[in-house]
Structures are given as structure tokens and as C-alpha cells.
């Protein structure tokens, strides 16, 4: 006998069609973020980044205390003596800087993302939300789920996991498992930017907090990482490190760490970004999706987010890597897998490959730096099923990627993974930072609507705009003015208005 129950309590969501929901993006996000970004705008290119970060209202010590309570932070700093020795064997006399690593996998959910998530949950609680959500295929999902569990909040994680053949990337399947193990609901989507539409619908329906990767609270959560590095180096070595390498994708990792280093007074420490080089692959391509072995920490995010930070899910991202990056190192997939294996065999530490992108860059950099210099690799991540070189390389072979030993420079993303046939092949390659900075300025102008829209429609960039762009790109007035001029923007100053 069949029983039919008329539920009657539909969702409060209105028109669920794609266009209608995307048109409600602003309203949904304002409700889900609890922050009005409009107040930070200048009306032109610039916005008040310092005030955005200042409004978090927590000092670094406040953040450290909040994190201590949830078991986040205070991770070990370990010297990798045998990797250093190996680098010295692959370097000229007198070269071979000392390599240290912050073992971030000791955080509750196994990565430094716990630092960001802890502050996201602090913010959610302050604002009175009863649930949190995040759109991420990475470790951040597990971190948010973990912190939500501790706070008794509900959690939904949206991840891009499957291609059109319903093949799941092993790394992302493990994230799903981890999030579910921590009590979260996981929405799994196929490839495409329309994930944002599904995510918005869920936010609207649940009324949960959007624990964005780009929030000021999240970035503030990373600052203690930089502070710890300085404190630990002072204690161990009597000085701050000469170099810190931070894996770069969305930019939050590098931004937070660099800000922490400055807070701790380490103004001479060079901050290097590091990404896996996936040039040639399209991040929105169904075909390419499962033909890469890294799902984050790569140029597919690193390039667009550095050159256009404000295209994320918040109006103004607190993650602004070009502001803090001294240079940007690119490594090959094969190099990172090799370093993961070396970390295990030479240092007795088995860690997830995605967390070793900076380690590969550090090894390459160490070969070029004096022996008395210190390089700190700013993270590790946990390892397990799916998050493992064997899982990824075996999967790559299944997907038709050639996996072989050879010269990493021969690696073609999507076609081959080349493990270095000698450690001396692991090399420092630098992205073209000047080109990225130029790109950034062009995108910043596009953001306000083009050259003629700058300065509230006058086509003139103010001194505030220029100062902002100088800070955002770590360049100088001359560079900014020249770039703006080339874009058809005029600027005030010296009484002369220049237009092309």
C-alpha cells in the first residue's frame, strides 16, 4: 500500500534558474558574508585594504589565542639536513642554503588551512550563523568542516570532483571522504564555473555563512604562521630566515604569511611564491580536468588570482599576493613528486605531494644560495589515499599521461610528467613578475569599467589610485604611471592632465 506525503514546506528560494540566481549574486553574498565591502571603495581603482584588514579587530596575539584554543598553530619547524646535504652536492662550492620546513600537517585537519578556517568560524559565530559553507576542492574544505565540528555548526562543502565520464580526481575524492568523516555535507559537481551557481543556491536555501577563502578573517588567520617562523628561527638560529617560500594559488597563503613576517619585524626576509607550472591546461576544460596531478597550488589559480584578485567570491579579496611577493618560482609536477619521495626516504617524513610544491622550489633555490642562508618552506600537508604520489602517478598513467624519468624541463602538462633523473635537474624557474604586474594594472582598470571610467568617469587616476597600484604591485610611481598611460588612463599631478 503506497503512502503519499505532501511535504508542503518548499524552500524559500525564488526563481532557481541560472540567470535569476546569478542576478541575485550580490544579495546572496552580502547575506552570506556579513561584511559590506562598499564602505572600503574609493570610487575609483583603489580601495582601503588596510582598513579591510584592520576591521577584523583581532591582533595577532588575539588570533594566536583563538587558534590555541582549537589546537591550531604552533607547528614544529624542522631542519631538513639530508635534503640540504643533497642540495649542496648539486651546487657549486659555498652554495647550498639550509632548508627548514614548517610541519603544518600537525594542524587538526592536516594542513595550514586550519589557520584560515579557525578564523572563518570565529567570524561566523560572531555574526550568529548556525552553519558554514565553502566552495573548495582542497584542504580548506576539511579545515572548515573540522572547525565547524568543534563549534557545533553545520557545514556544507561544494567541490568540483568529476569529469563528464564520472571519473573522480583521487585527491578530491579524499577531500570528500575527509569532509564527510568530519560530519559535513559534500556537494560534488562536474567541471565548470557553474559550481558557483549551485553554491549560491545552497547558500540562499540554508542561510549559511560563506567561509570564503578570500575573507579578511581568513588571511588574518595565516599571519601567526609568519610570526612563528620568525620566532622559531630567532630561537634556533639567532636570526630571521633569509627566505620563506609559500605555495601560491589563490594568494591567501602567501599574503598571510608575508604579513606575519612583517608583523614580527622580518622586513628583510624575501617572500617567494611557488606554484606547479600547468601552463597550457585550461582549468575549465572537462578534458584537462583529470590530466593534471595537482588540484591546487598551481599556475591555473596562481596566475589569474595574482593578476586579478577581485574576481573571487568576495567583492575585494584580502588575498593580494603581488603586494607581498618578491618573486614567483615555478616548479614541475615531476619535481614535486620527486621531492615528496625524497622527503620520505631522506628525512623520514611522509607528506602529501600538494604540500611539497614549496619544498621543490626550496631545493632549487637552495642550490643557488650561500650555505649560511636559511630557507623556510612554509608548509606540509597530510598524506593518505588519493593524496599520495602513487595515487596521482598511477592515475595519471590511467589517464594516458606519460610518466618517466628525464629532464623536468621537457614536461608538458596534460601529456607528460617527468621525474628528474638527477636531483641537480630540479631548477629554479621564475615567472615574469613584471608582466604579471602590468597585467594586474590592466585588470584593475578593467574592473572599474575601463580607462574612461577611472576616477568616477573622468578617465583620470588620482594620487590615491597611483599609491594603491604602487603598493599592489610592489613597484614604483614611474612603473604605474607608464602602465596607466599605455592603457589610456590619465593621471593628476603636476597640474598636467595627460591623455592618449
Amino acid at each position, binding site marked *: 500500500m*503506497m*503512502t503519499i*506525503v*505532501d*511535504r508542503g*514546506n*518548499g*524552500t524559500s528560494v525564488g526563481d532557481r534558474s*541560472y540567470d535569476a540566481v546569478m542576478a541575485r549574486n550580490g544579495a546572496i553574498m552580502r547575506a552570506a558574508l556579513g561584511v559590506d565591502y562598499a564602505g572600503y571603495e574609493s570610487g575609483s581603482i583603489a580601495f582601503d585594504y588596510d582598513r579591510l584588514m584592520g576591521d577584523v579587530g583581532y591582533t595577532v596575539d588575539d588570533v594566536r589565542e583563538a587558534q590555541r584554543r582549537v589546537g591550531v598553530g604552533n607547528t614544529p619547524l624542522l631542519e631538513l639536513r*639530508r635534503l640540504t646535504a*643533497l642540495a*649542496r*652536492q648539486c651546487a657549486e662550492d659555498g652554495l647550498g642554503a639550509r632548508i627548514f620546513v614548517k610541519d603544518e600537517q600537525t594542524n587538526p585537519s592536516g594542513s595550514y588551512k586550519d589557520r584560515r578556517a579557525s578564523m572563518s568560524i570565529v567570524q561566523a559565530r560572531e555574526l550568529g550563523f548556525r552553519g558554514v559553507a565553502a566552495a573548495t576542492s582542497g584542504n580548506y574544505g576539511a579545515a572548515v568542516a573540522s572547525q565547524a565540528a568543534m563549534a557545533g555548526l*553545520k*557545514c*556544507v562543502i561544494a567541490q568540483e*570532483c*568529476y569529469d563528464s565520464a564520472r571519473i*573522480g580526481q*583521487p585527491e578530491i*575524492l579524499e577531500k570528500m*571522504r575527509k569532509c*564527510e568523516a568530519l*560530519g*559535513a*555535507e*559534500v*556537494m*560534488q*559537481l*562536474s567541471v*565548470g*564555473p*557553474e559550481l558557483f*551557481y*549551485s553554491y549560491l543556491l545552497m547558500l540562499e536555501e540554508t542561510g549559511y555563512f560563506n567561509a570564503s577563502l578570500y575573507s579578511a578573517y581568513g588571511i588574518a588567520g595565516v599571519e601567526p604562521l609568519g610570526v612563528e617562523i620568525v620566532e622559531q628561527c630567532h630561537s634556533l638560529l639567532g636570526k630571521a630566515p633569509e627566505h620563506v617560500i609559500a605555495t601560491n594559488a589563490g594568494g591567501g597563503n602567501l599574503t598571510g604569511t608575508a604579513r606575519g613576517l612583517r608583523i614580527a619585524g622580518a622586513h628583510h626576509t624575501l617572500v617567494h611564491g611557488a606554484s606547479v607550472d600547468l601552463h597550457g591546461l585550461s582549468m*575549465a*576544460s*572537462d*578534458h584537462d580536468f583529470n590530466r593534471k596531478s595537482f588540484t591546487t597550488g598551481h599556475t591555473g589559480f596562481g596566475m589569474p588570482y595574482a593578476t586579478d584578485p577581485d574576481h573571487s567570491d568576495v567583492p575585494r579579496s584580502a588575498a593580494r599576493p603581488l603586494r607581498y611577493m618578491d618573486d614567483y618560482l615555478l616548479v614541475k609536477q615531476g619535481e614535486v613528486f*620527486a621531492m615528496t*619521495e*625524497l622527503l*620520505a*626516504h*631522506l628525512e623520514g617524513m611522509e607528506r602529501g605531494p600538494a604540500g611539497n610544491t614549496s619544498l621543490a622550489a626550496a631545493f632549487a633555490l637552495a642550490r643557488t644560495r650561500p650555505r649560511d642562508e636559511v630557507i623556510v618552506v612554509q608548509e606540509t600537508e597530510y598524506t593518505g*589515499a588519493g593524496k*599520495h604520489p*602513487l*595515487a*596521482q602517478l*598511477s*592515475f595519471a598513467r590511467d589517464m594516458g599521461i606519460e*610518466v*618517466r*624519468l628525464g629532464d623536468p624541463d621537457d614536461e608538458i602538462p596534460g601529456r607528460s610528467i617527468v*621525474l*628528474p*633523473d638527477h*636531483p641537480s635537474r630540479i631548477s629554479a624557474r621564475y615567472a615574469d613578475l613584471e608582466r604579471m604586474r602590468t597585467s594586474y594594472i590592466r585588470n584593475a582598470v578593467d574592473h572599474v569599467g575601463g580607462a574612461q571610467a577611472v576616477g568616477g568617469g573622468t578617465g583620470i587616476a588620482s594620487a590615491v589610485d597611483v599609491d594603491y597600484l604602487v603598493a599592489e604591485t610592489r613597484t614604483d610611481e614611474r612603473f604605474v604611471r607608464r602602465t596607466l598611460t599605455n592603457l589610456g588612463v590619465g593621471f593628476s599631478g603636476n597640474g598636467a592632465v595627460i591623455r592618449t
Partner: protein
Amino acid sequence: MPARPGDWVQIHRVVLAPHERTGKLPEDTRAVPFESWSKGFLVGRAADETVGGPVDVGVAGVSVGDLVEVETVVGRRLRGRLVALNPGYDHGFGTTYVPELLHVARQAQAVLAEAHRDRDRHDLAGGR
């Protein structure tokens, strides 16, 4: 094996058909649907995709392919086609070993061992 109300299941939905996909997309992505998968406790068979409409909770069981409603762990109600009952996790450490990795490690050990030997030889010869 039929799934019954209360069972832990996985459902699938086509969120956007290929012709409904939007914006700047590579051709290969535009040609396929945008899909979602979710897990939850089976509520019952559903007559249509609209959550809030009637659900059939008394039936003997539903099968893979049937349109159903589930309740997720946070209490959301979702509808889609049943694809799995008690879905497990089958990601692991790969289907085969990759010996190239071991080669990298052993080579590095050899480089370090060679360096050690050189150092010992140097010391024995009285160098500093």
C-alpha cells in the same frame, strides 16, 4: 537490492543541460551537462524534481535510476536519481606501483653516500 527509506544513498542530478551552459567555456565542457552528486538518507520516491512536492515513503523499495528525495546530514532535502546504496570510498594508493619514484630516492641516497666517501677520503688524506 532495493533501497528503503532511511538508507544511506547517493543521488545524481543534471543541473544544466549542455545547451543551458553559460559564459566562456571551452568547447569540450560546453558539450557535456553540468552535473551534481550528493549523499543523504533516503526519504522516498519522488514524482518530480521539485523539492516540497509529494514523496512516496511507504513503497517496498526504490532502485538505482529512480527519482528520489533524500535528507542530507545537515537536514537539506534534495532530489535526484538514485545512483548508489551505501556508497563506499574506492580511492587508494593507485592501481600499480610507480618504480620511478624509488629510483629517485635510491639515486639521492647514492649521491649522499658518494659525498660521504669523498669526505672520509679527504679527511684520511689529512685535508681539512
